[in-house]
């Protein structure tokens, strides 16, 4: 029998975002939250500085600014996602160009199929059924989506998503405590990807001395340390994206990026200014 056991972790605290990025090998299958959730931008920038190659990104369930940066910088071989967009700032320019040139592979999905595949992995079962989707052309290009007869009712087919097990879950959070528990608040998609992934790397705004599981008000927003592989402190580590309650998304910066990144030259200038030099972002 195949053993697909996932680890029971004792999280390590590492020096910084660069040290976390160093644990993500080239070619890794990395699950990322959407821009409106909590994105580990400091690690994304560190991956670009390292010259990471052939990453496979999983959008849970969509991707935005961070994926556009990684794609533009040549770090990505494949994206599996329901969409890549900059939201109000419009199309993701480096993603669009890479898709039109055929320089990355795209495994197009639809949001709840991504969630279902991860939920299957959370439970350790091989697949998860879902309503809808049958008749969409998406199904023609996904060998890991199949239809299955409802075992309880006649003439009722359901689509099933094969379990998705990312090699790495990567995100940012507000706090980690002395035991390695991480506070994600209501952003439960982060818990889903941490539960499903083989390794989970988290940057945090701040490290706390206490045990958050002792506090009944904090505990429901905690991701338990059993799922967490390594943590690094990275204040304002989500910038120019936001951490709700701490700082908002930097809309002007994203709009400016959307304009600059329309051309390869503009994108290169952006990288030079905000990514390739360390600590280029405003404190």
């Amino acid at each position: 029998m195949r053993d697909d056991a996932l680890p029971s972790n004792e999280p390590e605290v590492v020096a910084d975002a660069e040290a976390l990025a160093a644990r993500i090998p080239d070619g890794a299958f990395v699950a990322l939250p959407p821009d409106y959730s909590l994105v580990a931008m400091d690690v994304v920038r560190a991956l670009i500085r390292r010259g990471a190659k052939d990453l496979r990104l999983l959008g849970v369930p969509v991707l935005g600014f961070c994926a556009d940066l990684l794609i533009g910088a040549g770090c990505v071989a494949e994206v599996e996602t329901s969409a890549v967009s900059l939201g109000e700032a419009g199309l993701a320019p480096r993603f669009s160009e890479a898709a039109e040139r055929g320089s990355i592979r795209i495994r197009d999905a639809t949001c709840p199929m991504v969630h279902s595949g991860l939920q299957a992995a959370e439970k350790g079962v091989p697949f998860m059924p879902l309503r809808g989707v049958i008749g969409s052309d998406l199904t023609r290009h996904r060998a890991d989506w199949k239809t299955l007869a409802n075992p309880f009712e006649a003439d009722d087919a359901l689509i099933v998503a094969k379990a998705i097990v990312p090699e790495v879950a990567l995100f940012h959070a507000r706090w980690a405590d002395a035991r390695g528990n991480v506070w994600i608040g209501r952003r439960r998609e982060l818990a889903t990807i941490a539960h499903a992934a083989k390794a989970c790397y988290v940057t945090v705004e701040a490290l706390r001395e206490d045990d958050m599981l002792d506090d009944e008000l904090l505990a429901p927003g905690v991701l338990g340390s059993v799922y967490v592989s390594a943590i690094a402190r990275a204040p304002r580590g989500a910038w120019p994206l936001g951490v709700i309650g701490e700082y908002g998304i930097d809309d002007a910066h994203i709009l400016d990026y959307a304009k600059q990144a329309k051309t390869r030259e503009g994108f290169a200038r952006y990288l030079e200014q905000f990514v390739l030099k360390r600590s280029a972002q405003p404190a």
Partner: protein
Amino acid sequence: MKPDYAREELLACILAGLIGDARHTAHVAVGAASPIPATAVELLRARQGGRPRLSLLHRRRGNPFTEGSRELFDLAGQGRIDVFFLGGAQIDGEANINLVGSGEYPGVEHRFPGSFGSAFMYFTARRTILFREEHSPRVLVPKVDFVSAPGSSPPGVWRRGGPQALLTGKALFAWQADRRRFRLESVHPGVGADEVRAATGFDYDAPAKVGATPVPTAQELELLRGPVAAEIALNYPEFARRVWRRAA
């Protein structure tokens, strides 16, 4: 003479009419980057004492979801969402939508963001209003190049809901589920029925005399520019700045 309302205000008022009053619609969900549908729901809420319930996917503060980004889909799967909105890089005469790109997939000519939750929400929400401002043969095509989500399903395929109408910047079409065809309902101010026919790549039914889309009333405009604009500016700052010159 220039009309005394913005195009976005006209479209939001039409969408509010399509959603309908609170007796028929308890819960409306609005997906990514959809400020005009969100404006329509906020207009109804301002008029109807806070009803219907609005679940805005990308609400920046006071987001209604506590189970993460999958909760909207779980709600829809259970049948708790009455109305949802979808657009399309391409929409065809059978109400199929394409959010992926034009050309033969996967070698697309123009890549768009992707299908989002459409392949699920189009089946599970009770009603879907199709909304795309651009009304051109490039968008409204005879047949979409890629079906992100189909407009109808054959017997035997589970489906709770489907399209109700298609609203564009020029006209409003009703969906006729029995005929699997659109019918032209009304044309917006300044637009002729011939112009709509020429700008539409698919065939559709039309009455001999096509009505005019009603323009926003003074009361609607007052609500839009007051409480609705204030609410929308919190989540769609760029849109509010453009339409109402209002900062968040």
